[in-house]
């Protein structure tokens, strides 16, 4: 189990705010930190990895203290057994796919490289350089490199945000598969709700450095006023006025639907389309 309880003064686009989070991650759990950009979610990951120091706090991995401001304990990143996948992948341009992954290991464990490359379906590209790979392939190399040495926690910093929709879906499946296969403890940072829903066991909703909500994706995102039997997340693409009604076109994971409503929406709103007593209703997600 991983215990995180940290505070740090941050400067965001709205000015200063305090990051103040406290949570636990169970072994094998897939936890997501969800929040808008500038909410401090990436900083949390960087603090866990030891790439940034909190002003005060405590971090513990399976009983081993990584950081304790009271006792002056602060392990450098090298001594923390974490796998970090960066938003820009951070693959070493001077190394081949194989060398990138092998870099994570000591010489005597190098035979694990082929194995992991086969799992992420990159074995036949192992002698290529990162610059000749597609975004999705680069992402898989980064993932393989991060998990090959069996980290205590896999930290993913918006790993799929730069990819096309279809590739993103495929990689989400792969991520889920890897998570199960290696029984990884995973902490994902994301601002993509469908992604969070699909992958996470539990979500922490971070806003301005504070935890606003915490629970399963369903508890965090779906409001109690709607029974979750028939409801889908989407984005408003278009609004047409028709007499007293608004006809709203919503993109639900690539499916376009039209819903009539009396409420007002703006284009780009994130909405929940659901049915209540057989009539579909549509609500803005706060």
């Amino acid at each position, binding site marked *: 189990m991983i215990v995180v309880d940290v505070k740090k003064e941050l400067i965001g686009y709205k000015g200063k705010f305090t990051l103040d989070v406290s949570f636990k991650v169970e072994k094998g759990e897939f936890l997501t930190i969800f929040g808008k950009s500038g909410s401090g979610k990436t900083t949390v990951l960087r603090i866990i*990895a*030891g*790439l940034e120091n909190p002003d005060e706090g405590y971090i513990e991995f399976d009983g081993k203290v990584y950081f304790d401001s009271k006792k002056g304990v602060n392990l*450098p*990143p*090298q*001594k*923390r057994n*974490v*796998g*970090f996948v*960066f938003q*820009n992948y*951070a693959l*070493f*341009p*001077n190394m081949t796919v194989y060398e990138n992954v092998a*870099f*994570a290991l000591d010489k005597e464990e190098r035979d694990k490289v082929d194995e992991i490359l086969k799992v992420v379906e990159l074995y036949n590209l192992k002698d290529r350089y990162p*610059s000749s790979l597609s975004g999705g392939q680069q992402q898989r190399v980064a993932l393989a*490199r*991060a998990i090959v*040495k069996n980290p205590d926690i896999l930290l993913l910093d918006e790993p799929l945000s730069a990819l096309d929709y279809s590739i993103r879906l495929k990689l989400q499946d792969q991520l889920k598969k890897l998570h199960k296969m290696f029984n990884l403890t995973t902490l994902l940072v994301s601002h993509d709700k469908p992604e969070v829903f699909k992958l996470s066991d539990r979500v922490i909703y971070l806003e301005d450095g504070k935890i606003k909500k915490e629970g399963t994706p369903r508890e965090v995102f779906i409001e109690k006023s709607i029974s979750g039997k028939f409801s889908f997340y989407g984005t408003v693409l278009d609004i047409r006025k028709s007499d007293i009604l608004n006809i709203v076109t919503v993109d639900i994971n690539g499916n376009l639907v039209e819903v009539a409503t009396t409420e007002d929406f703006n284009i780009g709103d994130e909405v929940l389309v659901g049915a209540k007593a057989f009539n579909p209703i549509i609500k803005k997600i706060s």
Partner: protein
Amino acid sequence: MLEILKQIDYSPFFLTFKLAFITTLILFVVGIPVSYFLAYSKFRFKSAFEAVVALPLVLPPSVLGFYLLLILSKNGFLGKFWEENFGHQLAFHFEGIVIASVIFSFPFMVHPLTSGFKSVNKSLIEAAYTLGKSKLETLFKVILPNMKPAIITGITLSFAHTIGEFGVVLMVGGSIEGETKVVSIAIYDAVERLDYTTAHVYAAILFGLSFFVLLVVYMLNKRFEIK
């Protein structure tokens, strides 16, 4: 024509390249830690340090040469130390002009290396750290291989600048045959003696070499850019 070329003494070239090679080697070894510090450290008085490193760019060679002469002669602390341990002072000796060249060409190595260090994406370094690699291993396996253009620029500029320096070497080394008389000084000497033929040959060779060195750098850098 060939007769004339055969009569000319080419030993100043040998000396010049020996000087440039040794200077560049020392600068590379010293330049890497200094540039690493300048690029990544948040040390409070870094600006002062940066200013000192850049000083040789703006100081007249005669000023630098004068101070170096004081330090390197048998009354200066370095010259004295050398005389006690190696039997001769540093001024007017090859070792003396090596030290002078290293100081004079310092910014030509440190500046390209510093911007090279800064150009390496920070997340590459952080990735190496999270993969358990020490700072030293990260430096040699990740940072340096990914700043090759900066390294090539630093090495060539230092080398070329050392070949071309005149004032400092003249002040510190004088013009001693086979010891401190490098090509640039030999040209000056030849002109003073009104030996224009020798001056012509030396100057033309230096001209061609300098162009060739720079051409190679730009060609190499272009290759790295495409990759």
